[in-house]
């Protein structure tokens, strides 16, 4: 159990003038990680991340619904039954699922303040994420060679939009992970390091759960 620290910080008045301690001080409570306590007692950063993820459900809900609506609209062009490579997609789904394991191990290591393990697990997560994106690029390329492009049919447009948006989210996650590895290596993480890792972890797990839904609704359930 650690003690919260009490710091006295001069604050500017309406004119931007900082008064001295003689004329009044602003008393700021901080926890042992140096960020201020909030009125809810919860981290505002974490609250904001969960709110963001809740709103992302609406984005992907719209994309998945659009695909469900148009998945049968491919007259004269290849459809899901001709295109899907279930073994490949199953392996890439497994890879993304395992990246959730390595991510949660990174969060656990960060909470135990083990920087070396945190960096290792974050790097492995980024590697697994890159493998998933590579498989998706391969899949898109093979569809293109079979004559299915973005504008070929309503089915292809809705499919590429949905899985493309997900792929972009994974790519952003990889960039976040690698950036985090860089700033942890330089010990330049602002604020609570464990919380920063946890926030990026929440984003990464969200990308994984979206794929859990896409894998079942788009790939496994026939049109």
């Amino acid at each position: 159990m650690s003690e919260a620290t009490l710091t006295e910080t001069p604050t500017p008045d309406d004119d931007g003038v900082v008064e001295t301690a003689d004329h009044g001080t602003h008393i700021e409570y901080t926890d042992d990680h140096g960020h201020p306590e909030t009125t809810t007692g919860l981290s505002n950063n974490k609250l904001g991340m969960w709110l963001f993820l809740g709103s992302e459900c609406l984005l992907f809900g719209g994309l998945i619904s659009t695909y469900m609506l148009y998945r049968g609209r491919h007259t004269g062009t290849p459809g899901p039954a001709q295109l899907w490579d279930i073994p490949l997609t199953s392996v890439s789904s497994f890879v993304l699922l395992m990246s959730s394991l390595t991510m949660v191990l990174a969060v656990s290591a960060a909470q135990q303040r083990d920087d070396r393990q945190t960096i290792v697990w974050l790097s492995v997560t980024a590697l697994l994420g890159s493998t998933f994106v590579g498989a998706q690029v391969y899949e898109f390329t093979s569809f293109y060679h079979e004559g299915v492009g973005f504008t070929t049919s309503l089915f292809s447009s809705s499919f590429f939009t949905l899985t493309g948006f997900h792929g972009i989210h994974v790519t952003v996650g990889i960039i976040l992970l690698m950036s985090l590895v860089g700033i942890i290596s330089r010990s330049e993480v602002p604020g609570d390091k464990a919380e920063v890792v946890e926030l990026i972890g929440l984003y990464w797990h969200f990308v994984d759960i979206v794929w859990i839904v896409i894998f079942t609704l788009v790939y496994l359930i026939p049109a």
Partner: protein
Amino acid sequence: MTTVDHTRHDAHHAPTGHASPDDIHVHKSTSFYVKVAAALALVTAVEVGLYYLDIGKLFLPALLILMVVKFVTVVSLFMHLRFDNRLFSWLFYSGLFLAVIVYLIALLTFRVFDPTT
């Protein structure tokens, strides 16, 4: 093994006294997470197996149930929502349920689930 770290928000020192005992770091052992991941991999294998097997009318509900099981497991155990403050659950699940309800209504309007259309 579960250990609980109360270091982040100590109610005795919070200025408003609103710090929640739920807002804590939860440390579970590596073996716990590996077991959860193995279970998730097994469920994925079952899903893929069902794709190749002919189980008739049970196919769709079985796949949907397995999907929900995987989804809830990741959210509850990997994202720690089960151990975290309930406000986070409300924020996330309200967005999720809103999305499901809105888009189910939209899809029903377009008769997506009607086999005769």
